[in-house]
């Protein structure tokens, strides 16, 4: 992977969030837009992930979550997430980020305490997994910018439909 100084990416992201706040004047709506934009990014990003990570097909959700955390975050953001807090059925887990490049140089004023600043990441994960036939829900439940000690995203598998032979062409 070609790499760049993350500063440019981080500042561009910050400037975008600021613009969204000015556009919508409603923090909830900004959270929603960030998720939506992330979703579109994820749908595209999965191609690059599959092409460059050289990983094998994941056998289950557990493995997919590990791949997102260990390979995906490393590949794109040069950081990793830990996967913990699995529920008994293996359909829900937490991704814990101790180090989040998006929030370098960022502090939230009190008026924006409900802003999920990094919500784009949730959308990206959702979009990327959707392209490999896993419908997931992804939300931030802990956020350093809101005073927590780590970033925690709760990842929940809603449904998955393994591709069966003969494969259908995409319409």
């Amino acid at each position, binding site marked *: *992977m*070609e*790499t*760049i*100084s*993350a*500063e*440019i*990416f*981080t*500042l*561009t*992201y910050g*400037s*975008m969030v*600021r*613009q969204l706040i*000015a*556009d*919508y004047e409603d923090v909830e709506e900004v959270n929603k*837009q960030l998720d939506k*934009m992330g979703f*579109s*990014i994820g749908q*595209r*990003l999965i191609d*690059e992930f599959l092409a460059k990570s050289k990983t094998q097909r994941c056998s289950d959700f557990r493995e997919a979550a590990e791949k997102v955390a260990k390979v995906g975050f490393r*590949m*794109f*953001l*040069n*950081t990793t997430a830990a996967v913990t807090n699995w529920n008994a059925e293996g359909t829900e887990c937490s991704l814990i980020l101790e*180090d989040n*490049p998006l929030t*370098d*140089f960022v502090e939230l004023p009190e008026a924006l305490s409900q802003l999920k600043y990094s919500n784009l990441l949730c959308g990206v994960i959702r979009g990327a997994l959707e392209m490999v036939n896993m419908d997931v829900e992804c939300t931030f439940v802990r956020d350093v910018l809101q005073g927590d000690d780590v970033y925690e995203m709760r990842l929940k598998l809603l449904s998955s439909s393994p591709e069966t032979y003969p494969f259908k062409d995409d319409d």
Partner: protein
Amino acid sequence: MPPGGKGRECSESCLDFLTLQLVQHYRSQLQGPSQQAALDAVGERVGRQLAERYSRDRPPLTEALEVMKWLCKEFWGEVFRKGVDNLRTNHRGTFVLRDTQFRWLARLSQNQMPAQMGQPLPAPIPKNELAADYLILPCAIVRGALSQLGLECNVTADATSLPQVDFTVVLASAAAGGGGGAGGGAAGAVARR
């Protein structure tokens, strides 16, 4: 990997995906600011912040030409991955910066539609038209950076010969003084790399 930003790296595609999405988001918005206005604002902030960071440890640049040379070499190198190939000026406040391989548009594809069986390939979209939306952000970044260094200006880009892009910077002082004009033709080369 040092936490806290300094020296941290991420994949180049992160920025590609983000800027692409920014353009698409504001293209599809029916309410709120226009695409031009929104991307201008986003880019100018980024340009200002980057210029501040990159020029923190160097003595102040006083001459407009010095600033432009710094922009072409240092700033361009950091943000667009390689220096400007050619800088020309008419010495009256107009500068033309030529990047023969503008990195941010390197992956733009002219053929939007795949070829259909038995159908002629649809006519490719003219390069300039195709690139227009994606040049708003880089132009705004350049304008922001120059303004941070004390040069108020207007920046336009011409992508008719992609992947080569010509950026034209017209300083506000020149435009106001009436001495500027679009005098690209009379421009003399001042720096070649």
